[in-house]
C-alpha cells in the first residue's frame, strides 16, 4: 500500500511543518511543527483541548489539516495520501476492535487488506499474539475479552502491519491503576525490542515521564516545550509547564537584581535567590515565576546561616498528609503556601523556617515571547 522511498537510517521518520487545524471557530492547532527521528518514543502531552490528539490524527490521515506546509513520513510527502495508504497504524482509546470478527481475524485484517495470502496472515497474526502474550486467544470473540486483553489485541492488530510509526491515542485511559502500570512497562519493552517509532498521546504527566525519552508539551494548539523529562521537570520554560508537570511550589515575583551568578526575585516582600533556566536572561523588574520541587524543601527550627545559596523563609506547618511512601507537609509562609516532602515523619516545630538551595530554585519567564519550533 505505502510506497516508501528507500529511507536512510539517519533521516527522520516524521516531519510535520507548520500545520494548522480549525474546527469551526476553534483553533485546535496553531502552526505546529514536529520532527521525529526513527526509533524514538515520543509523547505528546497536554490538557484536553491542547491539540495533541488532533496532531496525531493528522499524522494518521484521519483528520485533514486546514493548512500544512510539509508532512513527510519516511521521507515521502503524504499530504495528498489518504489514511488507508499511509504506513502508520493507530491504537485507539476505544480499541476499535470489530465485534463481528474473531480475535485472530481482527488482527489479520490489516494483512487481508494488503492482500497477503491466508497462510502468511495466520502466521503473522500468531506471532503478534505471542508478542502481546495472548497466544491462545486466536478464536475468541472480542466480547469475551477483558479490557486489558482488548487493549493488547488492538496493539497486536496495529503492529502486525509493520507500520513505520505506531500512533497511540491515550490507549491506557480505560484501564485501572494496576493494569495501567503493567501496560506501561509492556509498551516500553515492546518499543525497545521492535525498534518501531512510537508516538503516544496522553494527558497524564506521570505516564509521559514513565514512558518517554522525549516529551512534547502542548497547550491550546501550540507546542510549549519539547525536551526530555528532565528538561521539563527541572528546567520548565513557562509557568504552564511548571504547573502541568506537577511542580508543587510555583511562585510569582519580580526580578529585583541579577548580578552575575545571582538572580534575586522579590516575592511578596521576601527576597528569593534562584537560578534562571538556560537561555533565559531576566532583566530587572521583569515578571518571573519560580519553581521549587517539594523534595528540595526542608523544615528547620532555626534560620539558615547567612551564607549565599540557601533561601530561608519563616513558616508555620499547617497540615501533614500521608501519601504512602512519603509525607507532604503544607507550610504557611510569607510567600504563600509551600509544600515540603519528607520520607520520614519527623517532629514538626510550631513555627520554623523553610529552607531550600537556590540551585534548586528555577526561574523562568512569565510570558515566554519566543515560541518553540
Amino acid at each position, binding site marked *: 500500500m505505502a510506497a516508501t522511498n528507500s529511507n536512510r537510517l539517519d533521516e527522520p521518520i516524521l516531519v510535520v511543518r507548520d500545520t494548522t487545524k480549525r474546527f469551526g471557530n476553534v483553533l485546535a492547532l496553531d502552526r505546529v511543527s514536529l520532527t521525529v527521528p526513527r526509533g524514538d518514543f515520543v509523547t505528546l502531552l497536554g490538557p484536553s483541548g491542547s491539540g495533541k490528539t488532533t496532531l496525531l490524527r493528522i499524522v494518521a*490521515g*484521519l*483528520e*485533514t*489539516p*486546514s*493548512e*500544512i*506546509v*510539509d508532512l513527510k513520513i519516511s521521507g515521502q510527502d503524504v*499530504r*495528498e495520501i*489518504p*489514511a488507508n495508504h499511509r504506513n502508520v497504524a493507530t491504537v485507539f482509546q476505544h480499541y476499535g476492535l470489530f465485534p463481528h470478527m474473531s480475535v485472530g481475524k481482527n488482527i489479520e485484517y490489516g494483512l487481508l487488506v494488503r492482500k497477503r495470502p491466508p497462510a502468511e496472515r495466520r502466521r503473522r497474526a500468531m506471532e503478534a499474539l505471542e508478542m502481546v502474550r495472548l497466544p491462545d486467544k486466536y478464536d475468541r470473540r472480542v466480547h469475551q475479552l477483558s479490557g486489558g486483553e482488548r487493549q493488547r489485541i488492538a496493539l497486536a492488530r496495529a503492529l502486525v502491519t509493520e507500520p513505520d510509526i505506531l500512533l497511540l491515542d491515550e490507549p491506557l485511559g480505560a484501564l485501572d491503576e494496576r493494569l495501567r502500570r503493567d501496560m506501561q512497562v509492556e509498551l516500553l519493552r515492546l518499543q525497545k525490542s521492535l525498534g518501531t517509532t512510537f508516538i503516544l498521546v496522553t494527558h497524564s504527566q506521570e505516564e509521559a515521564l514513565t514512558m518517554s525519552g522525549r516529551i512534547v508539551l502542548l497547550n491550546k494548539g501550540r507546542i510549549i516545550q519539547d525536551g526530555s523529562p528532565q528538561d521539563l521537570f527541572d528546567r520548565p520554560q513557562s509557568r504552564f509547564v511548571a504547573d502541568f508537570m506537577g511542580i508543587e511550589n510555583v511562585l510569582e515575583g519580580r526580578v529585583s537584581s541579577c548580578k552575575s551568578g545571582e538572580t534575586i526575585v522579590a516575592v511578596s516582600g521576601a527576597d528569593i535567590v534562584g537560578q534562571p533556566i538556560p537561555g533565559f536572561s531576566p532583566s530587572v523588574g521583569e515578571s518571573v515565576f519560580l519553581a521549587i520541587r517539594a523534595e528540595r524543601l526542608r523544615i528547620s527550627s532555626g534560620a539558615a546561616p547567612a551564607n549565599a545559596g540557601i533561601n530561608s523563609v519563616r513558616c508555620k506547618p499547617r497540615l501533614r498528609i500521608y501519601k504512602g511512601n512519603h509525607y507532604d507537609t503544607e507550610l504557611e509562609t510569607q510567600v504563600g503556601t509551600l509544600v515540603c516532602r519528607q520520607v520520614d515523619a519527623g517532629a514538626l516545630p510550631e513555627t520554623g523556617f523553610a529552607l531550600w538551595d537556590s540551585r534548586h530554585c528555577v526561574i523562568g519567564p512569565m510570558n515566554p515571547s519566543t515560541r518553540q519550533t
Partner: protein
Amino acid sequence: MSGITNWRSLLRRPPTGDWAVFTFSIVWCLGVLLPMAGVVLFSFVRVSAEGLDLNFTLNAYREIFLTGRWEVTARTIRIAATVTAILLLISFPFALWLAKGLRSTTWKIVIWTLLTAPFFLSDTARVVIWRPVLGLMGPINSGLMELGLIERPLTWLLFSEPAVHFGLLGPFLPNMVWPIFLSLILIDDDLIEASKDIGASPWQTLRHVILPLSMPGILAGIIFSFVPMLGDDVVAKVIGGQQVLMLGGAMLDLITALNYSVAAAMSALILAIIAALQLLIVLALRRIGKGASLVEGLRK
C-alpha cells in the same frame, strides 16, 4: 514554499452515503409527495378521461355535498373516531401490562410476535370469516336461540353499523397497541420507583409520570389507527355490505365511474381533515404530555 492542502475533510460518517440519500430524497419528493400535493390542485379543476380542463372551479366540492358523498365521509369519520377511541381504552391498559407487568423474557418475545404478526396478515382473511359467524344462521344466532335467549335471529349482527364497529376492532388493534407499547417500554423503571418513593399513589404515578411520558406513543397509536381506518373498505364491504357505505367504497365507485375531479376533491378534503385532526390532537395532548416531539416518538 507554501503548500496549502485543503481536500474534503474526512467525514466520520460513511461518505458516498450522502449523495445516495439526497438523490433518493429528491426522487421520493417528486414521485411520492408531488402527486399527493398535485391532487389538491386537481380538485380545483375539471378532470375528465380526456385530460385536464384548467379552469378554476369549485364544482367538484359542490358535487360532494350535493350527492350523498359528504354523508359517507362524515359517517366514515364518525365510525373511525369511535372505534379509535374504543381501541385506545382497550389498548392502554393492555400495553401497560405488557410493558411493565410481564417480566419473563420468553413471554415478552411471544407477545412481540403476537403483536407484530397481524401487520403481515391479509386484511381479507381476517374479516371474511365474520360473515358466516355473524350471519342469520351463524353460530352466535343459533347458540342464542338454543339457549332460549332470543326467539328470532338478530338481524343487526351483520350488515349494520354496530357490526362494522366491531369488525374494525380486530384488524386495527395492533396499530394502536404497538406504538403505545413501545413508548411505555422506554419509560425508565427508575422513574416509576422514584415516584413511588416520594409517596405517589399508583393512580398519581400513572397520571403524572407514565401518561405524559407515553404521550408520543399514544399520539402515534391514534394516528396509525384512525388514518388507515378511514381508508378501509374491506370491513365496510364484507361486514357492512350495502347498508353501511364508507369512504373506501365511495372512492372506488368514483374512480370506476371515471369521476376524477370529485375523487380528487374528496381526497383533498380527507387530507385536510386528517391534518386538522392531527393538529388538534397534538395540541390537546401536548397539555398532558410535555410537548413530546412526534419525530422523536417515531424515531423510537
